[in-house]
């Protein structure tokens, strides 16, 4: 039988515990497979040719989504569908549900994992910007223990992360702060496609000392950008601009313009550069608007 696309030759190992996985991963040229929806297509295209694949699907101890120590903790093996179904995640961070509704398609979401999305480090992948927006911390497990890396320092570049040989992303932790609202806005050409551009926004609102009564100001802001070449998926200049400003349409539109100015989209089959910048401005404004409305809602 002549196959159209055949993955590269590979050895297959199935990890039966996290310790076993770490030991297998210390071999050179090893990659993790979980949902497989990134690594297997990459192997078909010879963009990845690992010698060994370590299957971690049996490590169900990494499949949790829970609230612990004032943080939302998402295990690396949690499936996209699990995060979409998680009431606690959706209540604290609606941005996760917004994003998970538009990650790939429902069948892919049943298998694709949160950890896989982050570790694939695809510049167009949605969750990287989401976890950057909420200022999550990645828990990376190695044989010598855990190390914590802010998601904003997790990605070194396209398809490259700080995870080293013999290490495994174990979970992602998101600090929970009362009064926070969040949202994700994505434009894609069709269901299941990568973003042309997308923006995640997180806002915490406070009173306005010396300001107009009833006009909340931005106490903290997180803005994540997908598929537009933003460093670490973050719109840092727009975040800084928003701090202390009145949470209104004028501020949100100005933040959108700043985000559009400072990102680095490239023209490709999904659109020209100026269109993508236009989307960043508009989607930033919309995401901030929705995040502010949700922050204002009593929990």
């Amino acid at each position, binding site marked *: 039988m002549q196959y159209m696309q055949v993955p590269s030759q590979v050895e297959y190992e199935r990890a039966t515990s996290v310790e076993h996985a770490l030991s297998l991963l210390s071999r050179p040229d090893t990659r993790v497979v979980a949902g497989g929806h990134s690594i297997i297509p990459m192997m078909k295209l010879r963009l990845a040719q690992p010698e060994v*694949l370590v299957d971690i699907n049996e490590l169900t101890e990494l499949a949790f989504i829970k609230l612990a120590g004032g943080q939302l903790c998402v295990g690396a093996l949690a499936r996209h569908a699990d995060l979409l179904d998680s009431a606690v995640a959706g209540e604290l961070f609606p941005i996760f549900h917004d994003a998970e509704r538009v990650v790939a398609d*429902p069948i892919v979401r049943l298998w694709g994992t949160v950890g896989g999305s982050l570790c694939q480090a695809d510049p167009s992948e949605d969750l990287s910007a989401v976890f950057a927006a909420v200022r999550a911390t990645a828990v990376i497990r190695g044989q010598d223990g855990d190390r914590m890396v802010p998601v904003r320092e997790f990605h070194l570049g396209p398809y490259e992360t700080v995870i080293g040989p013999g290490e495994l992303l174990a979970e992602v932790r998101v600090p929970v702060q009362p009064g926070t609202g969040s949202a994700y806005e994505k434009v894609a050409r069709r269901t299941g496609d990568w973003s042309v551009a997308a923006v995640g926004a997180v806002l915490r609102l406070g009173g306005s000392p010396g300001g107009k009564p009833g006009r909340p100001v931005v106490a903290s802001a997180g803005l994540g950008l997908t598929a537009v070449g933003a460093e670490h998926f973050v719109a840092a200049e727009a975040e800084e601009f928003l701090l202390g400003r009145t949470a209104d349409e004028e501020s949100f539109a100005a933040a959108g313009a700043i985000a559009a100015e400072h990102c680095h989209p490239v023209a490709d089959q999904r659109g020209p550069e100026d269109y993508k910048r236009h989307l960043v401005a508009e989607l930033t404004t919309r995401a901030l608007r929705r995040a502010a409305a949700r922050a204002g809602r009593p929990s």
Partner: protein
Amino acid sequence: MTMRVAVTVNGTEYAREVEPRLLLIHFLRDELGLTGSHWGCDTSNCGSCVVWLDARPVKSCTVLAAMADGRSVRTVEGLEQDGRLDPVQEGFIECHGLQCGFCTPGMLMTARWLLDHHPDPAEAEIREVISGQICRCTGYENIVRSVRWAAKHPRRDDRGEAEAAG
């Protein structure tokens, strides 16, 4: 380099010596001769190859057969029970849910899974769950009608026995 892969498919265990890189869709079609599942786009976009892996639909062009080792798989061949078609299969016949039939096995497996979890899905829910599967013939309208038909005609476990007795 090969490895032994043992998979329970539609209740029957099969074991084969295969390369670790063999995809599940090719394992099913070429090693086991179960050609009901269709090999379409090869890029997890079209959904013709959807089968169940441990009770959840998966695009089997994007899973290694090795990953299914020790697990169970259900394919379109496993929908029929005791010579009776599954209601989703009957629905596709009743409502003309296929023309060329290429996407049908994947559509049927996803539809069965949807109805197992949401016995009375709205049209929008049906469209959402098949949104990662492509049909080039029907425009989806008749597929949605077919799944709705199946929802209205759930299998009653006693029906077969009553018919057999009658």
